[in-house]
């Protein structure tokens, strides 16, 4: 597992306070604990970890675990296993 992948997974688990058993690949905004408050915590964790600053439109579009990887790629952050 790559370091970026570990950081990405960790941010989801810590930021959204989710347990190990949830399938992140299908995880979407509004699922379980992913509300607007948790969303901003997740975004700030990712920005800190990868030293980037997401555009507001990307913060809004970041609506799933899979979509998030696509958005981070725009900022030069590759999330691969």
């Amino acid at each position, binding site marked *: 597992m790559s370091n970026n992948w570990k950081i990405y997974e960790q941010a989801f688990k810590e930021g959204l306070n989710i347990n190990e058993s949830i399938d992140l690949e299908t995880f979407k905004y509004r699922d379980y604990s992913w509300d607007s408050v948790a969303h*901003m915590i997740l*975004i*700030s964790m990712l920005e800190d970890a990868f030293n980037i600053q997401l555009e507001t439109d990307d913060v809004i579009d970041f609506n799933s675990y899979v979509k998030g990887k696509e958005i981070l790629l725009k900022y030069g952050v590759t999330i691969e296993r």
Partner: protein
Amino acid sequence: MGRNVIITGTSSGIGKSILEEFSKEKDITIIAHARKPSPQFELLLKNLNRENENLIIPVYFDLINAEHLTGQINNVLKAYKKIDVLVNNAGMIQPNSSFLMTSLDTIKESFQINFFSQVLLTQLVARSMIRNRIGNIVNIASIAAFDVTTAQFEYVTSKAAIVAMTMKLAIELAPFGIRCNAVAPGLIKTKMLENMEKELKNNLCHQAALNRLGMPEEISKLVYFLASKDSSFINGQTIRVDGGRGVI
């Protein structure tokens, strides 16, 4: 480590007074916004830096230009990872005219400067505050938001939007440890008053129980208080500083 503070519209009037008030704080770093560089503004910053041995950094952008604002503030946020306080002070008032004699473009311009630029700035800065789970936002509204006869349509409505924004942000940002309050100045002795008709100015002055104009420092001291720990249980409020006009 000292606080990092962003204040908009600091070259004159209430904003200049707010800058002077904050600059008295030890170890503070102030990002002082102005629309464009000027010898007077640069001299002001130089003098404040010398008097207080603090760091005051100018940042220039026109609030009408959202792209420029975003670029400049993103540069600030890259340089300063922690922003403790945002004071949304900058604003404008158009020459007086009635609603039916005001073009939509004029109304849009007022809203861009008095409201939308502050929305955008707050969105950008609040994200930095969220990261640190602490922050303080102080907006400068106006008594015109409540006493609608005191100014023209676009000023009254844009300042009313600031009051509503203050309440809404207080709720939405509270989970992140961010407070949001506003100050609603009455008639304050600044350059902005020059655009007001003399008769209206005199009438408004007499309508305050204290029967005088307010001074910029009578606003800035409250702004400083609202941005400090001393006001830690005040949130979502717009506080009038109007010499008692509101109680008459």
